């Protein structure tokens, strides 16, 4: 080999190494961007809600007066409560059904049922929120929620939760629709958690003479508790932030009564409805502050959920090693 080609190779080598340095820094930058994004959102929300934060301080969280027209006072309590109430209803319905479905898919159904069924559950997650809302408004409410509400009102109307009058859109409608939207999250993750439990545990329980249900309920579920909890909390996170579907079925009313059958309002809905109508800065900042609250809530919930799920996978690997 002549010396010229050797030096050409050496130059090429050097150039390539520079390329690698550039490449590695590109990778790192891309990685950083994910974290930068979270920080960026927090910073922007914080700065752009300054007017409202300075004007109202912590009272913002506990006042229920929302008046952009006359007194320019803003309090976020109705929306925070509305979000929490609808999410709670959603979870109450989604947990038993979601975990039950996960048990069916992971433990009970033969492969030729659980594969397609699992696929359908995942497809449910792909349906856009606005289509849920459309269906919710024109089908779910008149066909299911309204009759159910009237039954509840007639039988349990003495409770403050079920007082009439019964309109169409209501917190109950939003909560139940949210439950349907949250099913796939809870079911899919719970199913994965159950599948990851080693078979030796199942065999141990059955060999003692436990029934199938006893094995599932007394051995598998306690084993996978943190993972299941993580799935549920992730579902909660999804429910908190759901905007369009809820806006379409909740009625968007500042009603503060305790009745589930009345229309209500959530944090996401008020932002969606009034953001483009915020004609002055304080108004806008108040809405952005609500966005900030929502952001922090979902952030914390997601962190907790991911930690829990991570803990389950760690315990399984540790046990295998032992």
């Amino acid at each position, binding site marked *: 080999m002549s010396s010229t080609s050797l030096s050409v190779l050496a130059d090429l080598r050097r150039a390539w190494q520079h390329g690698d340095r550039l490449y590695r820094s590109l*990778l790192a930058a891309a990685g950083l961007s*994910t*974290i930068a994004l979270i920080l960026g959102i927090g910073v922007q*929300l914080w700065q752009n809600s300054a007017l409202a934060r300075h004007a109202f301080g912590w009272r913002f969280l506990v006042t229920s007066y929302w008046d952009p027209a006359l007194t320019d006072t803003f309090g976020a309590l109705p929306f925070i409560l509305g979000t929490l109430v609808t999410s709670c209803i959603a979870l109450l319905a989604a947990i038993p059904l979601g975990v039950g479905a996960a048990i069916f898919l992971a433990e009970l159904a033969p492969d030729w049922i659980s594969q397609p069924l699992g696929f359908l559950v995942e497809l449910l997650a792909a349906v856009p*929120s606005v289509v*849920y809302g459309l269906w919710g408004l024109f089908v779910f409410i008149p066909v299911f929620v309204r009759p159910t509400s009237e039954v509840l009102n007639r039988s349990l109307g003495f409770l403050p939760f079920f007082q009439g009058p019964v309109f169409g859109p209501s917190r109950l409608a939003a909560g139940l629709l949210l439950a349907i939207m949250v099913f796939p999250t809870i079911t899919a993750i719970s199913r994965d958690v159950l599948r990851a439990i080693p078979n030796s545990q199942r065999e141990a329980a059955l060999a003692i003479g436990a029934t199938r249900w*006893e094995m599932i309920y007394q051995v598998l579920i306690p084993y996978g508790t943190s993972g299941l909890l993580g799935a549920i909390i992730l579902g909660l996170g999804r429910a908190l932030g759901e905007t369009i579907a809820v806006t379409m079925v909740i009625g968007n009313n500042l009603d503060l009564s305790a009745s589930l059958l009345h229309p209500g309002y959530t944090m996401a809905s008020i932002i969606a409805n009034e*953001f483009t109508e915020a004609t002055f800065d304080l108004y806008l900042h108040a809405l952005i502050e609500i966005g900030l609250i929502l952001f922090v809530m979902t952030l914390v919930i997601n962190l907790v959920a991911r930690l829990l799920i991570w803990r389950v996978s760690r315990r399984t690997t540790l046990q295998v090693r032992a």
Partner: protein
Amino acid sequence: MNHRSIRRQIWRKSINSVMLALCGAAALAVVAPLLLILGYVVREGLPAITPQFFTALPTPVGVPGGGVVNALAGSLMTVGLGLVMAAPVGILAGIYAAMHPDNPFGVLIRFGTDVISGVPSIVMGIFAYTLVVLPQRHFSALSGGVVLAFIMLPTLTRTTEEMIRLVPSSLRDGSLALGAPEWKTTIDVLLPAALNGLVTGIMLAVARAAGEAAPMMFTAFGNPFINLDFTQPVETLPHMIFTYAISPYGDWHGKAWATALVLITLILLLNVAARLLVWWRGRRLGLVR
């Protein structure tokens, strides 16, 4: 121990049967809404679907006919722009996370990605608003693209990471052992090997972004006409469905169903195609029997 107690045995058996049956019922309850939704969308939306639906502009209230071509164009623009912005970052970040699974930074990326995917899309919308709309002082397709980029990022990162992981390390080692630098290995060996995995990720990300309505409300905003200028507002499919659905006009409700049919068909096709791609690739690699 009175294990021979017949009554106890019967009780245990009945509980077993009841609870297992309830689990089956739960599975049905979870899946039923999907079928109901699809059924209604098809039933209510199909009558209004004509070729004209895809080529005409929306007509004013009361005037029959009309279409959603402006929304189709707008969706294409915003999603396309979002993809162009998010794909390089997401794919690179995914490669990094796949290469350094135990590195704290890699773990942080994965964690961060999961956390971002949990941020409500309306909060993303506010973020894009403050970043793009406020300085520009008007709504635009650009801001819509930006918010969709943020929304697509986690999906792209996650899928890329998983797909790169599936590429056997022998392929990568072979290239490096020949003296090829890392970046060349990535371009020539890794990416082609993981190609349909990446395509899958793109399809899933696009499917998710195409359905987002909330953030569009104050970024892309809406436009009754076709607009190909990125600095101007555009209409998008999901936003159009929303506007039609909450209006008080009956014929607009019908148009909402029809638009929903178009949107959901598109999204479901993307999802099914993405899954098929993964399955087919798994078979090729011998991972699935």
